[in-house]
């Protein structure tokens, strides 16, 4: 198989001391942000992104993706030891993880969490290895109308399938798409929405917005909470690890089920949060002994962690193959790719083979190294929580500012970041989701270009989006998804009408 050969080549690219060191640094930083309250995957990646600006793209993406894996691992530590989910997707882990820690089985719970994270990611990476090249070679045949249809599908599925209020998702998305258009128009060279400001001429940088939205606003939100915490410290011994691993085969159904759910939800923009809950609930439903869930059952840790990681990892699949991120963090990684002048999408597999396979190989390696690292260093990371937030918060602010400034060397961007911090804080509190905004801001220009190119090609005829079977079915699917809640309700109504007739 061609994929295997390229993957081996990817490993060869990675296996240098420098890359391995970067990987370790990335993982440690990632676990660090995962453990800290109020910081998580997207924030961590966004804040640490500027560190990588001076590296070559492969090292940079390896480090960034390792930060991401680290954050995924780190979230489990606080959920189990402190009953504080470091991430929204580790909420389900607390249900059984924390009771286990209370019963003195913290080490088992942590081992279970890390191991299942590893398995979940591994399944997703395997999926990426074999599916991504296929999808991307298929997508090479896409023209502008097809690409616009795929973008449309992404946006519509957010609106139709998201759990937030529909109009709020639409607000978030259209705001993101509009702001993406600020600055010089790439097709005609005309200025748009700059209102005579020289600073807006450059446009609103995606990463600056993300650092504000996720970094600054998260600190404001964290300060609202009571930051006191009380939890267990735990060290993991080899004996515990081996005994948990020995029992693993017993839970293969749960692991397989959760991996499958995770991969599916990760590729569609449903996200790791939904995946972790679904994994947990299904494990509970199919269990013979449902009452024991929530009281410290190891399956209750396996199920959500596997699903969350499978989903977090497979969210990178559409990003690599089509240039469409499946999650907020994937969107930020995509923003990073653009900084290094790489254009994510199907051409990446052709033009930058080394880079893509290096990244995929780093997913394998990063997870293995991460598992070992996290199993050996848990006590150190748990004690990070002893550092008072009053010391951590200003350091995060400084890192955010450095990040925002470094992107374009503009003081204006630091103010913009602060503004987005306030916007993010208010939006989160009134329930306007930020993920669609992020996605729209990063995809905005490309969606518009695809739209305009297809319009120019067809002479302004909207029928171009139904001009052949492929583009037609994607566009139709997009519209169905957009109105999915209505269609779903209509189906429910019809079946309710029919049921009394049957009874």
């Amino acid at each position, binding site marked *: 198989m061609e994929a295997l050969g390229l993957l081996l080549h990817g490993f060869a690219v990675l296996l240098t001391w420098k890359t391995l060191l970067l990987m370790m640094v990335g993982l440690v930083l990632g676990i660090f942000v995962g453990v800290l309250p109020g910081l998580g995957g997207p924030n961590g990646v966004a804040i640490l992104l500027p560190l990588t600006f001076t590296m070559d793209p492969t090292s940079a993406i390896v480090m960034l993706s390792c930060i991401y894996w680290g954050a995924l691992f780190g979230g489990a530590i606080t959920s189990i030891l402190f009953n504080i989910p470091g991430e929204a997707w580790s909420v389900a882990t607390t249900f059984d993880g924390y009771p286990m820690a209370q019963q003195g089985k913290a*080490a088992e719970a942590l081992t279970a969490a890390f191991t299942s994270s590893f398995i979940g990611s591994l399944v997703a990476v395997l999926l990426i290895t074999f599916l991504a090249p296929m999808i991307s070679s298929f997508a090479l045949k896409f023209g502008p109308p097809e690409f616009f249809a795929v973008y449309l599908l992404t946006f519509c599925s957010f609106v139709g399938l998201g759990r937030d209020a529909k109009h709020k998702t639409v*607000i978030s998305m259209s705001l993101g798409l509009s702001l993406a258009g600020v600055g010089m128009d790439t097709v005609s060279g005309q200025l748009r929405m700059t209102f005579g400001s020289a600073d807006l001429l450059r446009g609103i940088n995606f990463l600056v917005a993300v650092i504000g939205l996720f970094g600054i606003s998260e600190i404001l939100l964290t300060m609202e909470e*009571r930051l006191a915490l*009380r939890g267990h410290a735990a*060290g993991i011994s080899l004996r515990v690890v081996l005994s948990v691993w020995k029992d693993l085969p017993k839970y293969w159904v749960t692991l397989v089920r959760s991996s499958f759910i995770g991969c599916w939800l990760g590729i569609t923009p449903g996200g790791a949060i939904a995946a972790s809950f679904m994994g947990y609930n299904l494990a509970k439903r199919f269990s013979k002994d449902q009452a024991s869930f929530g009281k410290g059952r190891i399956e209750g840790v396996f199920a959500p962690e596997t699903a969350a990681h499978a989903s977090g990892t497979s969210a990178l699949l559409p990003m690599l193959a089509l240039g469409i991120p499946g999650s907020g963090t994937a969107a930020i990684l995509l923003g990073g790719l653009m900084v290094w002048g790489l254009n994510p999408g199907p051409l990446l597999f052709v033009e930058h083979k080394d880079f893509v396979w290096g990244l995929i190989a780093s997913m394998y390696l990063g997870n293995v190294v991460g598992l070992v690292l996290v199993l050996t260093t848990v006590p150190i990371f748990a004690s990070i929580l002893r550092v008072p937030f009053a010391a951590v918060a200003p350091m995060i*602010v400084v890192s955010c500012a450095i990040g925002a400034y470094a992107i374009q060397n503009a003081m204006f961007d630091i103010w913009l970041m602060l503004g987005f911090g306030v916007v993010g804080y208010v939006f989160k509190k009134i329930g306007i989701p930020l993920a669609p905004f992020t996605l729209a801001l990063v995809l905005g220009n490309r969606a*518009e270009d695809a739209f305009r190119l297809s*319009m120019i090609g067809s002479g302004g005829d909207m029928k171009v989006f139904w001009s052949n079977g492929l583009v037609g079915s994607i566009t139709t699917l997009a519209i169905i998804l957009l109105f999915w809640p209505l269609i779903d309700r209509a189906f429910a109504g019809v079946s309710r009408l029919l049921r009394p007739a049957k009874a």
Partner: protein
Amino acid sequence: MSNTDIEIVVDDPTAPETDSPAVVSTGVVDVVVSLLLLVLAAVLGWDNWRTGAAWDSTGPEPGYFPFYLSVILGAASLYGIVAAMVSRKEAVESFVTRAQLRRVMAVFVPTFLFCLATQYLGLYVASFLLIAGFMRLVGKIALWKSLLTAFVFTAVMFVTFDIAFDVIMPKGPLEAALGR
């Protein structure tokens, strides 16, 4: 298992009281934000209309795509205003309590001052001041610890970015005096 006997306990003496009165309800903020978004949509829409939101011989004009987006944004915000006004749940939900607001301001105001200081004093001096000041005044951490932490962090940042990676940050009079 004996290794779980040790507990990690962190206190938060300045935690916001749970019984603090709400400053404003979520419903009110929702209406205000939706109104602001409506205004923004109108401004963006007008600007794009001016740029040209129609079709010419080569295809859509530059303002076409963003113009219709601002129409969508405006429509959704309009709907948001109505939805927020009729929502009973949001009307009673607290957006932020007085105690919470105090804590949020305790971060926001220093952050704002930090941005201002960065503009005039340079990033490194500003971050030293922010970290030391925040730890001492907000966190009530011993002065020497605050100063030391701030110095070490700022120095590490300077070495990492300015010396090792050559990422240039805004600088002020202090750096100029030191010849960097």
